[in-house]
């Protein structure tokens, strides 16, 4: 019953979020601020995780295919496809669900319990639209860029691992990452990142917006935002993979 209640309320909330925004000048300035806050502010963690996971994927692949009949460039190919298909879109989005999702839910939740949202409502401002729509637009816009940056840094991390450990010659790895390249994999990953960006911002905004109580409830909303966003990312990952790759 609670699942149905939240699902119904989430869609009603979305209707309010996509209601008429405040003045366009203010709306666009908010989007720029959110892109800076949510997107540019996440570059560091995306970069660090991508370089290390890219390196680990490469090393694990190399150590698990040591058969002489399998060419060494396969390591580059496998690392590339793993990063393009799954790591950079899904895993990075799961990490962002933790970082950005908790940030959005706690920010809006705090505004709720300190009556700042009531203040917006009394002024006649569509508070859901004013607070959440710029975040949704910013995340949908910036998430594909974060994913593309993650792809580049992840592959670079794999190459660094090859160079520093000597597990695969650099030339073989570079040949592998160019071998049998399917451009649609990048598009598939970017489509997923758009959907995941929307899910992270809207679900976290929903949990923050309907916070009631005090500091403890803000913490709970933040946790729920991360958990629900992560589950939805996994669910939509499955659905989109079946739709786009089948």
């Amino acid at each position: 019953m609670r699942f149905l209640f939240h699902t119904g309320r989430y869609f009603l909330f979305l209707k309010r979020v996509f209601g008429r925004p405040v003045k366009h000048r203010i709306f666009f300035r908010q989007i720029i601020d959110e892109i800076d806050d949510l997107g540019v502010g996440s570059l560091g963690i995306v970069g660090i995780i991508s370089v290390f996971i890219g390196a680990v994927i490469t090393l694990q692949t190399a150590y698990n295919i040591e058969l002489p009949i399998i060419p060494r460039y396969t390591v580059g190919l496998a690392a590339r496809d793993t990063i393009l298909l799954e790591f950079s879109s899904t895993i990075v989005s799961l990490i962002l669900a933790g970082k950005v999702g908790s940030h959005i839910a706690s920010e809006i939740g705090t505004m709720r319990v300190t009556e700042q949202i009531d203040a917006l409502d009394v002024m006649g401002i569509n508070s859901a639209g004013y607070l959440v729509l710029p975040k949704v637009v910013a995340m949908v816009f910036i998430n594909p860029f974060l994913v593309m940056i993650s792809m580049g840094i992840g592959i670079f991390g794999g190459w660094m691992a090859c160079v520093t450990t000597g597990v695969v010659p650099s030339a073989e790895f570079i040949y592998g990452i160019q071998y049998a390249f399917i451009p649609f994999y990048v598009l598939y990953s970017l489509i997923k990142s758009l959907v995941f960006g929307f899910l992270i911002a809207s679900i976290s905004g929903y949990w923050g917006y309907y916070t009631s109580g005090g500091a403890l409830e803000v913490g709970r909303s933040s946790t729920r935002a991360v958990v629900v966003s992560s589950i939805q990312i996994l669910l939509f990952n499955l659905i989109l993979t079946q739709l786009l790759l089948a």
Partner: protein
Amino acid sequence: MIEVHGVYKAFEGVRVLKDVSATFETGKTNLIIGQSGSGKTVLLKSIVGLHQVDEGEIFYDNRSFTGMHDKARKGIRKEMGMLFQGSALFDSKTVEENVRFPLDVFSDMSFSDRRDRANFCLQRVHLENVNNLFPSELSGGMQKRVAIARAISLNPKYLFCDEPNSGLDPRTSIVIDNLIYEITKEFNMTTIVNTHDMNSVMGIGEKVVFIAQGEKGWEGTKDDILKSDNERLNDFIYASKFLKKLRAEVNK
């Protein structure tokens, strides 16, 4: 003038307001008083439309607020200013940005005019040289004054104050009360103040509505209060032993 007719409100089956009717007059500081949990905040939030009433009607200068569709309500909301219990200033904005916010959203004034208006409102609440500070850098009393400045920035017809003195020392409370009173007179607003502070009642209570257990228990002026023989009202006003003793001595 704001009129409340037969308002009922319940939360999850628990009745919080029962058949509350009252009239709040223009150009006066109208006070809603009552114990904590008596329903006065729910009444105030119902009047401003933050809660939907279950039954009853609310009129703003003979315009039915409860029967209005959202678009018309928005029009009335632009005529409202509200001071919240915890000030409800936007943490991420400076003092000037907070006061300018309603103007940024709703007015077509140029930036310099909006800034001038914000400065005027800040000066009106006796705040200067705080424009670039953030709310967290201000004292509780200063935050309340910024909230008043924000509430009056659009020159509202109706001002609502939810426990404006909570968390303030007695001297600062008097400053805030006097500000609310002066602004009400200066801009001829219909002001409703929610409070349980008896100093406020005796200081600025031109019209007082007493709420007890969700019902209107009494209505009158600050001068009528002292002569009232309403038992529930007297229990609330003379709750402390000191005041009870004082009253007994006065009555001798």
